[in-house]
């Protein structure tokens, strides 16, 4: 189903076929998604871009197995997940999917490390192994020195990095990030994008949801949605490299 992009013959991780989602609002049907067919290949970094209300979050929730489509199929790692129970979906989310939300969604009054351990807790990973892997993930996002800090003691950018560590700690097939820079100042936003690009460079599949054209151009490929439909899918020319952006930032803006 992939029409173009640099992604070559690598395996399809996630695919939707003619997915639609309707909501009933006061008896009126709202079509949040219509006939969405996309495919994400292993190792890709893809942006889903569109204006506010175009259905990006709805799509992300469906491909993230948090929500079910009204019609169509979602295929994860080759298996149709349409008929799975909530508990089976929870296990698949735990195993294959990492989420990064606009509003971080960390547990309050809980340390960074405990937050990152959460997916491992539900995966049944015990004790030493769990803390080992959580620390490793936090080190990957540059927070190896903030393990015991509570979410409330971290800046927005740091909180989002904790969320990224949580998303990748269980080695998922795919990381889904919904407006990950939406609540951040521009520098923190660029830092978060740099981490996502870095992770992608290390082989992790990343789907980035955004309304911002510049943010979207951090990916290799952009899927444009409008009014619940896929409008176009194209490779990104002049990909923005966040590490380069960071270097170009004026020095005096460098804060904590």
């Amino acid at each position, binding site marked *: 189903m992939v029409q173009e992009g640099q992604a070559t013959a690598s395996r399809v991780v996630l695919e939707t076929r003619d997915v639609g989602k309707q909501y009933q609002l006061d008896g009126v049907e709202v079509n949040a998604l219509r006939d969405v067919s996309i495919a994400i290949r292993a190792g890709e970094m893809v942006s889903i871009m569109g204006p506010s209300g175009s259905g990006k979050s709805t799509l992300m*929730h469906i491909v*993230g197995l*948090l*929500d079910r489509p009204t019609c169509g199929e979602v295929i994860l790692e080759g298996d149709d997940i349409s008929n799975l129970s*909530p*508990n089976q979906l*929870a*296990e698949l*989310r*735990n*195993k294959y999917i990492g*989420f990064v*939300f606009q509003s971080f*969604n*960390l*547990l*309050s*009054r*809980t340390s960074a490390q405990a937050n990152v351990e*959460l*997916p491992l*807790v*539900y*995966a*049944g990973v015990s004790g030493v192994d769990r803390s080992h892997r959580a620390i490793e993930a936090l080190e990957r996002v540059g927070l190896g020195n903030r393990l015991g800090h509570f979410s409330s003691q971290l800046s927005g950018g740091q909180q989002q990095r904790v969320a990224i560590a*949580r998303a990748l700690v*269980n080695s998922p097939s795919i990381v889904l990030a919904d407006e990950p820079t939406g609540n951040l100042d521009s520098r923190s936003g660029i830092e978060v994008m740099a981490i996502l690009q870095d992770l992608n460079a290390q082989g992790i599949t990343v789907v980035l949801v955004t309304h911002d054209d510049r943010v979207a151009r951090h990916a290799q490929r952009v899927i444009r949605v409008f009014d619940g439909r896929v409008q176009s899918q194209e490779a990104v020319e002049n990909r923005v490299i966040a590490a380069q952006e960071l270097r170009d930032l004026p020095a005096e803006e460098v804060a904590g």
Partner: protein
Amino acid sequence: MNFAESFRIALRALAANKARSVLTMLGVVIGVAAVILLVGIGTGVQDEITGQVEGLGSNLLFVVPGQYGGGMGGDQGPPSRRFTLEDSELLARRVPGIDAVVPVIQAGSTIKRGNRSVRVVVAAGSEQASEVFGGTLAGGRGYRKSEVQAGARVVAIGSTVRDVLFQGQDPVGKTVTLEGQRFTVVGHYESLGGGLAGDQDSQVYIPVTTAQRVFNLNYVNTIVIKATDADRIEVVKADIRRVLTPRYGEEFTVFTQEQTLGLLSDLLGTLTYMLAGIAGISLLVGGIGIMNIMLVSVSERTREIGIRKAVGARTYDILSQFVIEAVGLSVLGGIIGISLGWGGAELMARFTPVPTNVTPWAVATAFFFAAGVGVFFGVYPAWKASQLDPIVALRYE
């Protein structure tokens, strides 16, 4: 996720809301403490009373006028015919295998000496009365057969009566006034310790013939019979019936010690259960408090539930987390409540006349009831939490 993990998460949540957890627990603490204390009092009183009755000896029979069926009903109205001293003599002659037959009159009165006086229970019997009343002489003697035959105004007094009227003096040979008549004190008894089953130390003992005269009675209240052999008590009972039936038909009842005990412990047992029930209601209220707080907690933590589900928590994980929280509250409250109730019962036994006895059975019941309350009132909020749609939960503000 395993149980230990759920347990850890639940404990952390309880610790994060310390004030709320403690207040919620208080309901259970008070309920359990009340159960332990009240049941402890019930059991203690029961033990003491049955112990006192047992202490009289298991080979006693009590013959009373009127018909009493089983159960506790004694409402057949005043008996038409009372026993007399002749009945007592008849039984003594005609019933074999007995050590003593004592006609008994009991009446309340006031005994005076000089300007001091004290309320007493007058227990009147024959010279064999010491066989059935118990008690140990501290000095002097009991009244004699000749004094019973003559209706002499002699009295033996309990320790409280002695202490109030004589205040350390030897009472033997002194005179006291009872029902306007002068009595000579012939003996006094050692203290039996005031129990709830009637204070024997405030009793005075006089001959039954004297009692009939001063109270102007021609009957006796009860005839108490002591069988020689406890094993032959049923035979003696049948003999008593045989002797009395020609005179009284069915209008009398013979109680054995065992029956009296059975009746008493039935009554006291019922009382204990009633106390437990009343205390149980407060435990129930504590449980409703837990449910209320858990519902608040679930709605406050909707977003947390959404996050947990997004990263892979299954229905069971959320359910067990919240049930363990509720059960943790109730079990901890139960343990504290048991300690408080037990301590209260011990203090009460030591510093008040109320006897208490906290049995392992009561402790175990209270504990499991408290845990049960936690499960019962925790499951619904936990189930509600576990059924939340992850998307709805994540969007929740």
